[in-house]
């Protein structure tokens, strides 16, 4: 029996360390690695299901080519590479390198992901996207307020007097955080959850606040106003470390409790209670979720929430702070997110960064000089996950050639002309960071790729050779095939950090050099003023928004007020059963979550003569979805909730109903802001 250390590279807070066991070369068990203090208990169900996923009969093991009749047939690597390379050469000659779209999602983490961009640079450039579907507005709000994105170590949460899960359902999306939250409860600390849904996270909370979706900013400002009115602010902290407090104080006076109660549909006494708990039960940590920052006003919303912590001195202390993204392990990035994902001021290496990820479909269709002819898609499933599925499909279908690197027949893979089989996490070593805990981890190769699967770095190598590049030209950009070369590539990246080496990482995770256990303990902020900026000139300059975190209604909400045709807020949260659109085809997962369902409040259901278990149709002017209804007595009235990530063949993606629109800051996607109507399918 062989035991190996590795780590899960999914786009997930927990980014668990694993100990995996092999028997006769076959993966037989996955347990958590106890050295990662954030994930000492077991892995989640998705982590366990790798045992099936890696060996799934549905895995794509050979290059596939789409026939005229639409079916896929197996082709050799030689053929696949030659078709692609010939097309690349001719496109470059006829239209220029920018006629090729390179699109990658967040399917897997790792330093080797940089090989992709290196290839496109060597090719002579490409067109690619800026922004991100995930978290930019929250990142940018945090950066503008606090200077950078980091927070206290995960285990510090247990020192909190009060935890506020604001729009975060940790029980499903960051299950290991619940261990620390439970310790707070056991010590008689307070837990508040702010979410239109009653979630598993809220189940042991003291208070569940259910605002109307998109109004969290107003709620935050009302809470801040109450704290100021009751003189519960930390005056000394404000004087020393907060910039723009006077302006902020004047601004929040508008956000009177009664008025905000009307805006948010939260009872005034609850708003008072949250303000009082924050004032009395310190230290306070707010864990901000990602879903609520996918709204058209969400950057300012996030800034408003952080303001509460600033005026109460809940930053830079144990048990306190703003837990949104901890990028302290992103030591390999020269420029960190969100700035790294912004379109560069000056084009370099022939790479045109011109399409907003939030508007991928529209961006592809509207690209000119040159227009797009071909797409290369890896680590992502944009048909399912990007806003406006219809437009994305239309855009992809307008191209001459689509290459998709995938493990399974996803909605996007179905659109491909050539599918190249992708490796699983166990089939090539890589070094990964995280965004909740501060560990650097080795995602170790433990088995050989099955069939004719090749890691992306190797695919790029052969492609580079086929378009005429020499080994000398590839040096430092694309590693030669072979595990030894990959290890050398990684060692080279680790070199600047004496604490890190592949051998050390094989033993277990290592806390990233320079990590602060308590973020901003020194209370020095990387903002223009060096203080926490309640008033931020950069916000105005960069995004054209108010310097103060004022509340504005979301675009869809304004529309709702004027035309009540689609009166229901469609919430599209993540689930414990998947990472976005990954894992839903695995039998082990299907036994837990067999089909997409829409949760609705019984009052909304009975108004439409819908009963539990009925097939219902959700629709708006953009599209429709048919799913089964599930009654949820505690879901806020006027909301309907269905998890994102289902493939079209499994019942459909929520993005048939979403709209491609950027968030107010950060170039995020405001695609959680959707209105629909529902009806029973007869």
């Amino acid at each position: 029996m062989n035991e190996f250390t590795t780590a899960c590279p999914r786009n997930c807070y927990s980014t668990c360390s694993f100990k995996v066991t092999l028997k006769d070369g076959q993966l037989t068990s996955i347990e958590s690695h106890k050295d990662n203090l954030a994930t000492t208990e077991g892995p989640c169900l998705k982590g366990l299901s790798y045992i099936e996923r890696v060996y799934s009969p549905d895995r794509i093991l050979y290059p596939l080519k789409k026939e005229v009749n639409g079916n896929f047939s197996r082709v050799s690597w030689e053929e696949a590479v030659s078709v692609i390379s010939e097309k690349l050469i001719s496109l470059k000659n006829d239209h220029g390198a920018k006629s090729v779209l390179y699109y990658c999602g967040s399917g897997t983490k790792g330093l080797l992901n940089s090989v992709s961009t290196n290839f496109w640079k060597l090719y002579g450039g490409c067109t690619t996207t800026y922004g991100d579907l995930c978290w930019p507005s929250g990142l940018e709000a945090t950066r503008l307020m606090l200077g950078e994105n980091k927070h206290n170590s995960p285990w510090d949460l247990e020192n909190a007097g009060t935890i506020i899960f604001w729009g975060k359902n940790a029980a499903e999306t960051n299950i290991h955080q619940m261990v620390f939250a439970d310790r707070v409860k056991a010590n008689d600390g307070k837990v508040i959850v702010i979410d239109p849904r009653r979630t598993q996270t809220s189940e042991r909370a003291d208070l569940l606040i259910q605002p109307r979706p998109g109004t969290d900013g107003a709620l935050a400002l009302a809470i801040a106003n109450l704290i100021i009115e009751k003189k519960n602010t930390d005056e000394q902290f404000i004087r020393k470390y907060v910039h723009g407090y006077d302006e902020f104080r004047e601004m929040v006076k508008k956000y009177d409790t009664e008025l905000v109660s009307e805006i948010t549909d939260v009872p005034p006494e609850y708003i008072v209670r949250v303000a009082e708990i924050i004032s009395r039960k310190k230290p306070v940590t707010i864990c901000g979720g990602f879903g609520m920052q996918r709204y058209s006003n969400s950057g300012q919303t996030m800034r408003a929430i952080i303001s509460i912590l600033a005026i109460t001195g809940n930053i830079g202390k144990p048990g306190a702070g703003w837990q949104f993204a901890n990028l302290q392990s992103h030591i390999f990035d020269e420029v960190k997110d969100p700035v790294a994902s912004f379109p560069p001021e000056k084009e370099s290496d022939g790479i045109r960064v011109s399409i907003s990820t939030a508007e991928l479909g529209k961006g592809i269709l509207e690209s000119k000089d040159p227009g797009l002819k071909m797409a290369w898609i890896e680590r992502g499933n944009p048909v399912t996950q990007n806003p406006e599925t219809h437009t994305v499909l239309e855009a992809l279908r307008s191209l001459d050639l689509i290459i998709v690197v995938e493990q399974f027949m996803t909605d996007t893979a179905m659109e491909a002309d050539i599918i190249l089989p992708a490796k699983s996490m166990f089939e090539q070593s890589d070094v990964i960071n995280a965004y909740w805990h501060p560990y650097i981890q080795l995602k170790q190769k433990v088995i050989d790729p099955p069939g004719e699967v090749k890691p992306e770095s190797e695919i790029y190598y052969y492609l580079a050779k086929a378009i005429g590049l020499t080994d000398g030209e590839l040096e430092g950009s694309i590693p030669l095939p072979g595990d030894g070369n990959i290890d050398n590539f990684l060692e080279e990246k680790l070199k600047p950090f004496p604490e890190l080496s592949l051998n050390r990482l094989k033993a277990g995770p290592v806390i990233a050099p320079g990590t602060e256990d308590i973020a901003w303990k020194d209370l020095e902020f990387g903002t223009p003023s060096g203080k926490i900026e309640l008033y931020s000139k950069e916000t105005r300059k960069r995004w054209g928004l108010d310097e103060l975190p004022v509340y504005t209604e979301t675009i869809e909400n304004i529309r709702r007020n004027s035309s009540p045709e689609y009166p229901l807020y469609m919430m599209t949260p993540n689930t414990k059963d998947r990472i976005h659109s990954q894992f839903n085809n695995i039998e082990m997962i299907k036994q837990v979550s067999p089909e997409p369902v829409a949760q609705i409040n019984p009052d909304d259901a009975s108004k439409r003569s819908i009963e539990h278990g009925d097939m219902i149709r959700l629709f708006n002017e953009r599209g429709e979805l048919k799913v089964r209804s599930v009654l949820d007595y505690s879901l806020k009235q006027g909301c309907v909730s269905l998890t994102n990530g289902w493939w079209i063949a499994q019942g459909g993606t929520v993005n048939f109903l979403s709209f491609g629109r950027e968030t107010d800051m950060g170039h995020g996607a405001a695609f959680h802001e959707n209105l629909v109507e529902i009806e029973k399918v007869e």
Partner: protein
Amino acid sequence: MQKAFVFDINKCTGCSACMLACEIENDLPAGSNWRGISTFNYFRFPEIPVFHLSLACNHCLEPACMKYCPAEAYLKDEKTGAVLLDSKKCIGCRYCSWVCPFDAPQYNKSNRVMEKCTFCNPRLLEDNSSACVVSCPTGALSQETFKKDITVTVPGFPESTIEPAIEFIPLRNSSSIPEFKAKGDKKSFENIIRKKLRSLPKKVTFSSEWSLLLFSFIACIAVSLFGARIYSGFEFDMRLFWGMSIAGLLISLTHLGCKGRALRAILNFKRSWISREVTFFPLFLLFSIVSITLLDFSRLFGWITVFIGFAALFSIDKVYETETRTGWKKTHSGMVFITGLFLLGVFSKSNVIIAWFGFLKVYFYTMRKFHFHKTGGEKRISVSLFRLLFGFVIPAGIWGIYGIDHYNYILASILTGEFIDRIEFYLELEFITPVKKIFEDMLIELRKPKSVKLRSADWDRIIYNR
């Protein structure tokens, strides 16, 4: 040393990792259910908490599966307390799944034997923990050495006397749910729960147990026929008696997953009513052969045979008298012992016996039906009508009008009525399962008067510590 699961309800988020870990460790196909998760308040009704119970075999100190397994296929590992099933000894009769309130033994359709959680015994023997425990992402599931006087009464967990080796850490405050603004219509919710309760898959159904129904009914007729011969010299066709009895035995075999191991069914005569049933009935047949062929119905030997026959019928009734039975647990008019005595009277044409047991049957029948009527159970009025009509009214009518002349019609009518009652007996069999219990307890929890909202004074205390 008996090990025990410890389950902290506060910590479990219902994530299902334990289920997957179990399937991986034991190489089971997805959906195997050695460990299952049941959710209390799946519909998130505002006034009651939502929580989950992750349950597998509780490796009881007094395991019912082991005690009542007719084939002695179970054993308990003294070193860990693990209750283990030897699949090579199991005859696939499924009786362990009836007597286990936790739904631990599962029928494997491909092997046609039972299977269940092994406690990951090999891991325990190596001082490791079970796979489900190791894989729990929140630490809700753990393992300890079993202690007496632990909490095992939580909503959704079936009560029993078999001493399950599981300890629950109950909710910190059992009525604690977050305060929030939402109200639900209790009536519509209760209706949904009741509907759900009715639609839950039943452990024992008429269609799954038709072979047992036929066997037990045939056994009942055979014993009473022979009894009537001894009691009153009632003459009957011997070929019919043999044919029927042997057919009954063969039919009962079809109930077994593993028919080749049928003889194992008598091994646990000491404790299992199934073993007694399958010992006494063939013994009755053997004795009746001797009695008929060698002793020409000699009285003493005849009565011994009748006694053994009724012992078989008594054992059959006892098989169904499990601790896990819910619903109607009192005497059922379709039980074969009382039916046997009634038919003994009918075959013997003994008015006294007919009157006594006929009266008892009608009494038990109406009692039960009134109970169902009161508790909202299935009433099946037309079935009742047929049962009473064929069983009592028609035969009494024929007897009243034509006297004993049309005895065969009377008999046929009575047997039809009794057969309907026996079918109803199977239809009305109910056993507790964790899933069922959780819905039942939700109804109870809903009816408890409680103030959901904390008074502002409570909040003052919480916020200001005063």
